[in-house]
């Protein structure tokens, strides 16, 4: 019984680490979605350039101040433009990017359907 209590105590102590796990993951998630503008092809999370280090501190600061993920994205978009986000929004320049797979899927489906119906007939 004493052993069990001891075991539970240790378990609780070690689990205290997980209390902040959510916020840690959030700032990782945000920095992974940010393009490092001076070292292209890398995310801010992966980069160790001065720019990326500052951006990481800024994201942490903003999260501590209580900004949401969306607010941070909008803030940076305002400063550096859409390019800083890896996940582009739906806009005039990107609608083709978003719609092309759907379009190809529909056309392909139509071809297959047509072939099958023709075969049946």
């Amino acid at each position, binding site marked *: 019984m004493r052993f069990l209590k001891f075991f539970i105590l240790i378990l609780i102590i070690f689990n205290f680490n997980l209390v902040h796990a959510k916020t840690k993951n959030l700032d990782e998630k945000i920095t992974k979605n940010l*393009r490092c*503008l*001076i070292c*292209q092809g890398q995310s801010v999370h992966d980069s160790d*350039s*001065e*720019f990326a*280090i*500052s*951006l990481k*501190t*800024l994201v942490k*600061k903003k999260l501590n101040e209580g900004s949401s993920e969306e607010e941070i994205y909008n803030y940076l978009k305002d*400063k*550096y*433009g859409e*390019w800083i986000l890896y996940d582009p929004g739906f806009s005039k320049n990107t609608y*083709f990017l978003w719609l*092309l797979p759907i379009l*190809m899927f529909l*056309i392909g489906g139509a*071809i297959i359907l*047509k*072939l099958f119906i*023709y075969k049946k007939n």
Partner: protein
Amino acid sequence: MRTKIFPISLIIIVSVIFVIFYKGLQNSNVYEPQIGNQKNIPVFIAKAFETEEIFKSEDIFEGDKFYLMNIWSSWCAPCRDEHKFLLNLSNQKNLKIIGLNYKDKKKNATNFLNELNNPYDFIFNDTDGTIAIEWGAYGVPESFLLHKNKIVKKIIGPIDQNSLLEIKELIQ
């Protein structure tokens, strides 16, 4: 007729995709910073370089004067190259040069200024680089020409002879 639908539609689809990707080749995928749009200057709180007093950004950028906000650091080699142009600009009467000391040690920065002279009317610190991000800056050196709380011109990289002349023309 029935057999022709498939090859014809295939050719059309392939050619449409080809045209799209061929056009896509011509688009540059290198990031070009937006220069030229007049943005309001950011509001921030920072520490002065010499006195280490904390101040608000509104206190330094005021009125109708022209300001040149220059981001510099003692460890940045191109900053040395542009320093003579900054010294040249510091003779202009209607232009105030504000320095943002980016991620620097005070001792090194002071040595840098003692060695090359100080063109700045006022310097403030940015130890973690977050104020530079408020300005939408990429790194050092970078300069912003300000007028009436708007960014009139942004120079990414060191100031050279051409940008020097351009600044002089703009502040006339």
